C-alpha cells in the first residue's frame, strides 16, 4: 500500500484526495487525523472519508496541501487497539431468508456468520450517525433491494454491497434487513451523539 494519494480540486477551499480503495481511504483518513492531532496539518473544517476518497474542506490554501500530499507515504492502517464496540442484535430481519439464500446457508446460520466477523466504520453518510461498516468478505456481498422500502424501522441492521449498516432512525432504505438492535445509534442529547464514527471497530452479538 504505497500508492500515491491523488488530490483533486474541489472549488477554492477543498481537496478530494483519491486512493485505490476503501482500505487505503481508511489508512489515509487515519493518517490525516494523526497529522491534525500532531499539529502538522493546516487548519481544516471537515475531514470526510468515503469509499475511496477523503475530502478536506475549509482549507485556506488547498493547492499547497495538494502538492504536499503527493509526497506522503501513507502507512497501512495500524493494528487494532482496544475492544470493538459490541452491538446486540436480534437476527429476525425481514430479508433474513433472502440473505441466507444469497449466502447459501440456512436462515439461522446468518446470525452466526455475521456475528463472527469484525467490522470497521469506513465512513458515515445518508443520515446523521449512519455508518458504512466494512468487514464482509467479498463472497458475502449482497445487492440492494430493487425497490427501496419507504420506511425502515430505527435500529434495523442491514446489508448492501460490501457494507453493513444500522439505521439510526426510521427512514426510507433499500438495504437488506437481517436484524435489529435496541442500541440508540444517534442521540444529539448524548456526547458523543454518534456511536459509529469513522475508524471505529464494531462487532455484532446475537441476542436470543
Amino acid at each position, binding site marked *: 500500500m504505497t500508492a500515491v494519494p491523488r488530490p*483533486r*480540486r*474541489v*472549488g*477554492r*477551499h*477543498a481537496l*478530494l484526495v483519491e486512493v485505490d480503495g476503501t482500505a487505503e481511504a481508511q489508512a489515509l483518513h487515519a493518517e490525516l487525523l494523526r497529522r491534525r492531532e500532531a499539529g502538522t496539518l493546516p487548519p481544516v*473544517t*471537515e*475531514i*470526510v*472519508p*468515503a*469509499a*475511496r*476518497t*477523503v*475530502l478536506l*474542506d*475549509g482549507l485556506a490554501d488547498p493547492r499547497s496541501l495538494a502538492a504536499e500530499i503527493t509526497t506522503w507515504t501513507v502507512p497501512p492502517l495500524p493494528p487494532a487497539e482496544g475492544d470493538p464496540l459490541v452491538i446486540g442484535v436480534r437476527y429476525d430481519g425481514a430479508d433474513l431468508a433472502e440473505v441466507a439464500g444469497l449466502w447459501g446457508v440456512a436462515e439461522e446460520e446468518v446470525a452466526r456468520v455475521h456475528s463472527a466477523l469484525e467490522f470497521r466504520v469506513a*465512513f*458515515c*453518510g*445518508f*443520515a*446523521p*450517525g*449512519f455508518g*458504512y461498516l466494512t468487514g464482509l468478505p467479498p463472497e458475502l456481498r449482497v445487492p440492494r433491494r430493487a425497490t427501496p422500502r419507504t420506511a425502515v424501522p430505527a435500529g434495523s441492521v442491514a446489508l448492501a454491497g460490501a457494507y453493513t449498516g444500522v439505521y439510526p432512525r426510521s427512514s426510507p432504505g433499500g438495504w437488506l434487513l437481517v436484524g435489529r438492535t435496541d442500541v440508540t445509534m444517534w442521540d*444529539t442529547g448524548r456526547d458523543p*451523539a*454518534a456511536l459509529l*464514527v*469513522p475508524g471505529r471497530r464494531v462487532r455484532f452479538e446475537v441476542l436470543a
Partner: protein
Amino acid sequence: MSARLTVVRAGALTTVQDLGRPGHAHLGVPRSGALDRPAHLLANRLVGNPDGLATLETTVNGCAVCVSSAVTAAVTGAPCPVRADGRPVAWGAPVRLPAGAVLDVGAATAGLRSYVAFAGGVDVPPVLGSRSRDLLSGLGPEPLADGVVLPLGSPCGPPATADAVRRPGPPRGELVLPLVPGPRDDWFAPGALAALAGGRFRVSAASNRIGLRTEGPALERVVAGELPSEGMVLGAVQVPPDGRPVVFLADHPTTGGYPVIGVVDGAAALAEAGQAGPGVRVRFVPARG
C-alpha cells in the same frame, strides 16, 4: 419572564437559522445554516447581534409574529412590505417594536427568502452547536407553526445605523454562478462546461434548502457506471443520471454518489442561488483566477 415570540402566521416555510453546524460532516451531519448568509449577517448587525445569533428565514410569503416585550427587529434578504401592528415600517433597517406588537413580514417582491432578526436572537436550544433547522436530516427546531412560542435572548449591543449597512439590490433576472471545474469534470463530454455557461438552464420548482435543481438540456457523460460515494461540499454542482445539474445548498447531504462537475465559487453567488425562484435562467460561468 424573558422575551419571546408567538407565531401568528407561520408562512409557507419559516425556519430558525444561524451559521449552521460545520465540523460534523464526517458523522453525516449537513452544515445547514442561512441560505442567504450575507442577508442573515446584515439582519443581525442591524439589531446589534453577533453574527452567530439565530434569525428567522422565511420562504416566499413571509410570516408574522407577536413580541412579548419591546424589542428591536430588522428584515433583510428578499425585499418585502413590513408592518408593525398594521402600519408600514422600514425594510432593511432596525425597527423598534413595542410590547405586544405584531410584526408582519409580507410576501417577497423579489427573491424568495427574507431574514428577520430580533435583538438577542431566537434563543431555542442549540443542537450540535447550532440552532439551524436542517431539512435533510431533521436536526434543530421544527419549522414554525401557528401558535408556537419561541424564546428570545437578551439584547447584546446597540443596533447599527442605517448608513453602516449594505442594502442588497433586487436579484437580477438571470442567476450567474461562477464555477470552478472539478473534481469530476472529466466524467463529462468536452462540451459540458460550455453547455453550463450557455444559459439554457432554468431553476426548477423542485428546488429547496438542500439543492437548487435545474431544468434544461441533459449534460452528456463520457464515463459510465457508478461513482463510489464521496464527500460533498457547499456549492457542489452534482449531476444525477437525468443530466440536470443540482447546486448543493446548506442542507446538502455530506456524501453523494453522482459526479460533481464543478463547485460554485463564493458566498455571494450561493446567496443569490438561495434567492432564485422557479423559472429564473441560470448560467454557470468560469470562475476568475
